[in-house]
């Protein structure tokens, strides 16, 4: 039987609560609507009911919305939060997002764009269940590994602040190099290893701290590999069967570790018979997958026409990068390398693809 998600609406205006109850009660997923006119009652409902989404006002007596969100973030980290406020002040918006809310809307805006707002609420309700939820807010469906990977690939300098309920961790990244980590009372590599075991949370980018002492000297790719191995070992030692999600997570970590260890920028795996491509390290997988399919098709046609033997690979060169396309049976792989890479990229790509497939 399909479970009905619960939405809790918190507002001190009874008319507004009634309006929202009608509005959200008619959503296609038919959620159960709970209402509360003060924070105390809302907290009581959060304690007793499995609430998926909290829609809260900001301006309320006694405990205001920001305080409420802070409490919810700490005590109910799995609950999605939306702010629906009449306060047209950018400062409140920034503060709400800093607290990790999923969405901030003005009441007037919501009334003008009810349909769009309802779609956003549906999207938030539709996301994975709180028990099995993975991914980091602010960048849905991306793992922490992906986020770190992106920061390092873009040679960014930042401090990543990751929050998971009451736990807070920090990663110091300087020009794409991980220089320090702090998590659960640990520092350096140990903290990084602990942090990578987190599967959910929120993160924010803080300004870089160029003067921060460097504690981690290993390259980030080596640390990722070690973490993947540690997680694999821990999973092997566990007597409980692993969930599909955690297996997929480990697999992704392993692939990312391989990618960074070899020094590649991205890999796109494309089923030649159609289907969704799988990609790591790129934000543009669809376009790359399309070119990979075309290149495989053109190479096959040319090879047959000229009787030139089997295709080894197709290498491409541009100002920004080098690419190697390999076709393996029903799959084609496109591997991106830095423009200045001078090693035997075809051979390295082949090794990467072999480990990817295994």
């Amino acid at each position, binding site marked *: 039987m399909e479970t009905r998600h619960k939405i809790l609406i918190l507002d001190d205006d009874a008319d507004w609560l009634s309006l929202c109850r009608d509005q959200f009660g008619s959503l296609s997923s038919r959620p159960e609507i709970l209402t509360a006119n003060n924070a105390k009652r809302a907290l009581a409902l959060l304690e007793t009911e499995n609430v998926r989404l909290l829609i809260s006002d900001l301006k309320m007596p006694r405990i205001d919305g920001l305080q409420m969100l802070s409490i919810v973030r700490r005590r109910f980290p799995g609950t999605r939060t939306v702010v629906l406020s009449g306060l047209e002040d950018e400062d409140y918006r920034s503060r709400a997002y800093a607290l990790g809310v999923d969405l901030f809307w003005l009441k007037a805006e919501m009334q003008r764009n009810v349909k769009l707002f309802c779609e956003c609420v549906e999207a938030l309700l539709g996301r994975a269940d709180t028990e099995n939820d993975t991914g980091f807010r602010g960048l849905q469906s991306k793992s922490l590994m992906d986020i770190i990977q992106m920061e390092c690939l873009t040679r960014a300098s930042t401090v990543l602040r990751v929050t998971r309920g009451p736990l807070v961790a920090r990663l110091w990244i300087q020009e794409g190099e991980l220089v320090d980590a702090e998590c659960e009372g640990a520092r350096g590599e140990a903290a990084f290893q602990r942090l990578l075991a987190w599967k959910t949370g929120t993160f924010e980018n803080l300004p870089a701290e160029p003067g921060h002492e460097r504690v981690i000297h290993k390259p980030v790719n080596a640390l990722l590999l070690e973490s993947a191995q540690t997680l694999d070992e821990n999973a092997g030692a566990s007597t409980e069967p692993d969930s599909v999600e955690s297996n997929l997570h480990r697999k992704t970590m392993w692939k990312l570790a391989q990618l960074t260890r070899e020094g590649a920028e991205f890999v796109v795996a494309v089923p030649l018979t159609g289907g969704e491509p799988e990609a790591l390290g790129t934000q543009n997988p669809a376009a790359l997958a399309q070119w990979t399919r075309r290149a495989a098709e053109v190479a096959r046609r040319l090879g047959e026409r000229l009787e030139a033997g089997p*295709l080894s690979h197709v290498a491409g060169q541009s100002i920004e990068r080098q690419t190697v396309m390999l076709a393996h049976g029903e799959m084609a792989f496109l591997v991106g390398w830095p423009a200045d890479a001078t090693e035997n990229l075809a051979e390295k790509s082949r090794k990467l693809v072999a480990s990817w497939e295994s």
Partner: protein
Amino acid sequence: MGILNKFFGGSASVQQLPAGTVTVDRDGRIVTSTVSSTFPEPMLQAIGRDVLELFREARVGQIPLSEVSLHFGSLRITARELRGGAIIFMFPQTALSPAFIPARP
């Protein structure tokens, strides 16, 4: 001319692999060629069209390539983009060919 062909022609032959350089314009027409004249011209034009298609598709895919190399078991085709057209180098691979051609610095 061709007297020997009259006596020895007609036997089955293996298709040659193209060796040399071809330049094609943006429409795929052959501009210059150093490939043997015995190699069928339609085949050369087909190579030119395929290579231009690779460059065109790469631009569409937002990875504009300046050079593409197709490595087959017995032939390597390297093409450089040339103002919409391309210059195409074809190297048959023999046992004496270097197995690895390092990337340019």
